[in-house]
């Protein structure tokens, strides 16, 4: 327990609403640490549609999703938020002093008096491909990421997908695997053309196989894969002997371990009140797309409103008894000092 990170407010999710929460909490002198499963801030805006314009951000007739994220990062910079990326929160424990201890999937520990769930549609996780019975092989012979390349040495490997992950791992694992078969539903790829050319060159030299089609079935025993059936290709159904499979079907959003925190849930959403945006556990708040209340609209601007009110309630938990003076950034010299704009 040596490296517990202590902060005032732990924010789960670094999407636009989680980022703006740093601003509102910062104006009230609360320090924030954000955890996100992605490798950068922005959530869906950065991961799903960075180039797409958004037309309903007040004051911005049009702004790209990534542009909005960049502006938010600039806006919260004075409050020096800390980030932990590539991590999913796992367990939550209430401590005797009223604060919360939150662990990540890699074992880091955080302690905070207030936890703000700004997890949007949930955490991005690898999508399970539509292959019947695949669950039985997961973690034993079917993997959704490569943690150690050695685990694939000497194996007959099937890689499924047409993006950069699929092509990169095809090229990287080909030298150490016994055999590599790449399966994609069409001959066009989303991956970088250079990787695709390298793959075709290796296929020419019979160093790997590329099959057009979709994996329709798996065979094996006790989680150990022995073959995969590929359908829909020009040669009809093909059976490929294999002992490892790596499917790359993109990401989907799941609530994940937050569902086990003992919060009241309503179909994967977290009900909150509309005064504080607090969950059924005092001290834990939920803002943005992940929460639910009568009349809820899943808009970024709703999330911005929610964090402003949430920050008032969070302040009362972190500094009990302290009088909260309502101030405008336009006129308050003390707020301007915090923002670094007061000379």
């Amino acid at each position, binding site marked *: 327990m040596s490296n517990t990170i202590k902060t005032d407010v732990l924010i789960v999710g670094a999407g636009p609403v989680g980022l703006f929460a740093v601003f509102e909490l910062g104006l009230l002198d609360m320090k924030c640490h954000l955890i996100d499963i992605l490798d950068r801030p922005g959530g*869906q805006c950065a991961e799903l*549609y960075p180039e*797409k314009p958004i037309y309903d951000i007040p004051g911005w007739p049009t702004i790209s999703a990534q542009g909005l994220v960049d502006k938010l990062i600039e806006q919260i910079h004075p409050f020096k938020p800390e980030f932990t990326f590539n991590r999913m929160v796992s367990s939550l424990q209430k401590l005797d002093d009223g604060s919360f201890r939150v662990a990540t999937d890699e074992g880091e520990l955080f302690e905070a008096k207030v936890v703000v769930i700004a997890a949007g549609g949930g955490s991005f996780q690898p999508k399970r491909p*539509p292959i019947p019975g695949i669950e039985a092989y997961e973690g034993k012979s079917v993997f959704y990421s490569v943690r150690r390349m050695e685990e694939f040495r000497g194996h007959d490997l099937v890689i499924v997908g047409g993006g950069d992950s699929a092509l990169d791992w095809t090229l990287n694992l080909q030298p150490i695997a016994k055999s590599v078969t790449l399966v*994609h539903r*069409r001959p066009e790829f*989303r991956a970088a053309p250079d990787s695709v050319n390298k793959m075709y060159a290796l296929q020419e030299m019979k160093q790997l196989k590329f099959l057009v089609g979709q994996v329709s079935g798996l065979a094996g025993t006790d989680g150990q894969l022995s073959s995969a059936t590929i359908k829909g290709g020009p040669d009809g159904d093909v059976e490929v002997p294999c002992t490892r499979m790596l499917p790359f*079907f993109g990401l*989907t959003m799941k609530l994940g371990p937050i569902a086990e925190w003992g919060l009241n849930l309503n179909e994967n959403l977290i009900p909150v009140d509309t005064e504080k945006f607090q969950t059924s556990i005092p001290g834990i708040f939920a803002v943005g797309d992940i929460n639910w209340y009568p009349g809820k609209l899943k808009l970024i601007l709703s999330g911005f409103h929610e964090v402003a009110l949430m920050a008032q309630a969070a302040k009362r938990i972190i500094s009990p008894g302290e009088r909260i003076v309502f101030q405008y950034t336009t006129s308050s010299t003390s707020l301007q000092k915090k923002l670094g704009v007061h000379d």
Partner: protein
Amino acid sequence: MTKLTYIAHDGTRFDVEAENGSTVMENAIRNAVPGIEAECGGACACATCHVYVDEAWTAEVGEPEAMEEDMLDFAYDVRPNSRLSCQIKVRDALDGLVVRVPERQG
């Protein structure tokens, strides 16, 4: 108004009136057709509004563009008549269009 028909995976028919210029996905959501999720809200970024276009309509509806084909890689049980319904715009020529909802989205 243009008539659209959705056939849910359990065979239930949904006959709806759609405005030209709206998307087949938007009309499915508006009419609570089960099995169309549209997680990303129509940005061609998620492949959860996947439908099968009735064979009689594939020529009129047309082929997906490259970006949509890329997204279809993530869909469940993709067939030659697969489309993402957020990328099909309703127009007069599609009056009577029939689409089927797959067993599941991704």
